[in-house]
């Protein structure tokens, strides 16, 4: 992110080396590479500022990717079923979307499943994630830098005490 010019050269190297802490789903990738007119881009979710938590479990509810209102194919990843965001070293793969070459801009809406769980000071509790919707727009040129977009969810600022547990109001930083 800090060296955009360098990052333009890096995607191939990253694919060759793997994505470090990130997981991958080979079948999705192969399917994408097998289609000559589509480019695959990942959407990942990563916890930040999670020191107070032993566990923060959230699941993906629904992801919508559109371009000027037209739906773009999105394939969810099995890893998105239950993500422990207290592990801040790990960017969980929500899934991949497949962009036709002519599409230059997309709108992305990530809805987290409405109930999650946390563990803090050895005690577990519920997370009300009904307001856990993250919306943003991005461009092909930004996506092409690293072939993925990572949503950083700042847990310290996103979770606060609510009725019956914690309430999630996403405070995010979205990076390519």
């Amino acid at each position, binding site marked *: *992110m800090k060296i955009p010019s360098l990052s333009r050269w890096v995607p191939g190297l990253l694919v060759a080396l793997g994505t470090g802490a990130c997981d991958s789903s080979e079948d999705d990738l192969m399917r994408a590479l097998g289609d000559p007119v589509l480019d695959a881009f990942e959407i990942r979710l990563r916890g930040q500022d999670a020191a107070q938590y032993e566990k923060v479990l959230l699941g993906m509810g629904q992801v919508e990717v559109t371009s000027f209102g037209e739906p773009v194919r999105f394939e969810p990843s099995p890893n998105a079923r239950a993500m422990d965001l207290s592990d801040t070293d790990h960017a969980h793969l929500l899934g991949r979307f497949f962009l036709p070459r002519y599409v230059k801009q997309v709108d992305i809406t990530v809805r987290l499943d409405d109930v999650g769980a946390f563990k803090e000071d050895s005690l577990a509790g519920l997370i009300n994630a009904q307001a856990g919707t993250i919306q943003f727009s991005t461009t092909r040129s930004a996506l092409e830098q690293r072939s993925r977009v990572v949503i950083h969810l700042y847990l310290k600022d996103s979770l606060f005490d609510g009725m019956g547990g914690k309430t999630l109001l996403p405070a995010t930083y979205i990076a390519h």
Partner: protein
Amino acid sequence: MMGRKWLGLLFIGAVWASNAWASDFRAEKLVNGLKQYTVDTYPETLRFTFTVTNIDPTLPSELLSATAPLLKSCTLSPTSPLVVPAGGHVTYQCEIELESHDACLTLGIHDANPVTPNHEVSFTSTFSIGWDAGASQAGANVLCLPQPNLLCDDTVYLSTASRSPEGRPAAPSRLYIFDPATGAVTLQGEAALPYNALAFNHFDNTLYAIASDGVSAASFIRVDATGSSSIIAPLDTAAPRSAIWTAGAVLKDGSYVGFEHSTHRLIRINPSTGGTLSEQVVTVPGDFQMADFAMNPRDGQLYAFNNATQRLTRIDPLTGVATDHAELAQIDGRSAENPVMSAAVFTRDGEFFLYGTSGPDTRRVSGFHAVDVTTGNLTRLLTRPVPQLANGAMCGVYSWGSPRPQPTTRDRGFFGASESALLECLAYGPISLGALGEVSTLPGALGILWANPAIASNNARRTALESLKVRTAREALTAVCNERVFNTRAPTLSALENPASLDPGRVEELRQRLERHNHSGKRTAIPLRKRIFAVDPLRAMERAEEPRF
């Protein structure tokens, strides 16, 4: 040779980057200084604060967009694009006037949160920023209540005042709601007065208290649902200014009684005017330290824990005579180690509960205890590492004709985390979900409640219809459990009757209705007689079995 080529590319990239903008912003948003703010009087001005911070310590960044779509009347000035210096920030302020409760709910219809307005959040306002290589968002919730009055149920109110450097009560005071079912202590708001002796009046569903700091004259005050306070009248008392009033309760006739801890004065007040009805000194049996008391609706007496003698104690509010229980109080059948009970509440059914701490100095824990007023013994119901809180209040008398709270409901998370509640639900027999099957076991019910709508537990992706079935089954099961456990009638599941022709449109409509229903009574307290005092969602998730539809 290859290595040198890559090094060259890295060098060129580094030089290029040194001339570039940084690309790290954070958005923050608060409403009246909080992430969630409650409004209960109208009109009220909401002050939104949006902050854009360039979190890069060395490079300036160019902000390309900053929007708060719901707050159309706000102009975010200075307008983007604009350059924010390294480590710098831009703050936008926006004020909107909420004219009425309905105006607030209208904002909830137009916000980006699909489930607002509801009984917990009226609207969510989101602040979004963008720059060339990323975006950031932050949100704030507003809850609008129709009127400032609270409702008479088993809600446990706890309050605490701050401490001055000399150890005297100081502002701000904070009002919390304690949920014994989940152990959550939720801040409702702050008051600019150091109050204590909190009590709930069942005639007007209002909290009253006495503000005293041991220096200035004490006042009789009202505390509203948002935690803010207003003075009704200066306290007309013979107690000196150094007096600190600690305990408060409301008698059956609606009069307020307060207790001063150093002079042992008991004052009775007319809550409408703040005028003193009577004042006397409590006749105590010996050592006497009491932080709070509550009125037993069965006999009209005040009950408390005497922290000096470690016994349950009873005070006659008319004669002022205090009587300790004959035996030392036990907790869970054993002698308690230095128990200090700070908050006392009686339910309308005559059950007594104490909130306080016990244990050795190195391992003291806060707990919520049921008290047997006959034996004087305590049973610990819940232990949580929550702060020591000073005072408790609860609606203690059934008052016919007063507004009734919304029937109690809880969402799927609650039933998916409270084993005792789910077992009570299943004890009535198998749960029929029509075309979606039947549930009769705990792991089966947990499997439905914790099923992910997008991915099955075997990692298979769900189709749109499968996802709809999961989301509907979760809400249908929850609605049935709300009916069985809380006696809150569930909507009919007619859209699920015919397994051969499930109409996705009708099913989605039903799902939304069920979801609204399951959230409609979440602000109403679970009756304490239900004895639901623990949730553990993580353990429940482990026991869940994937459903088959």
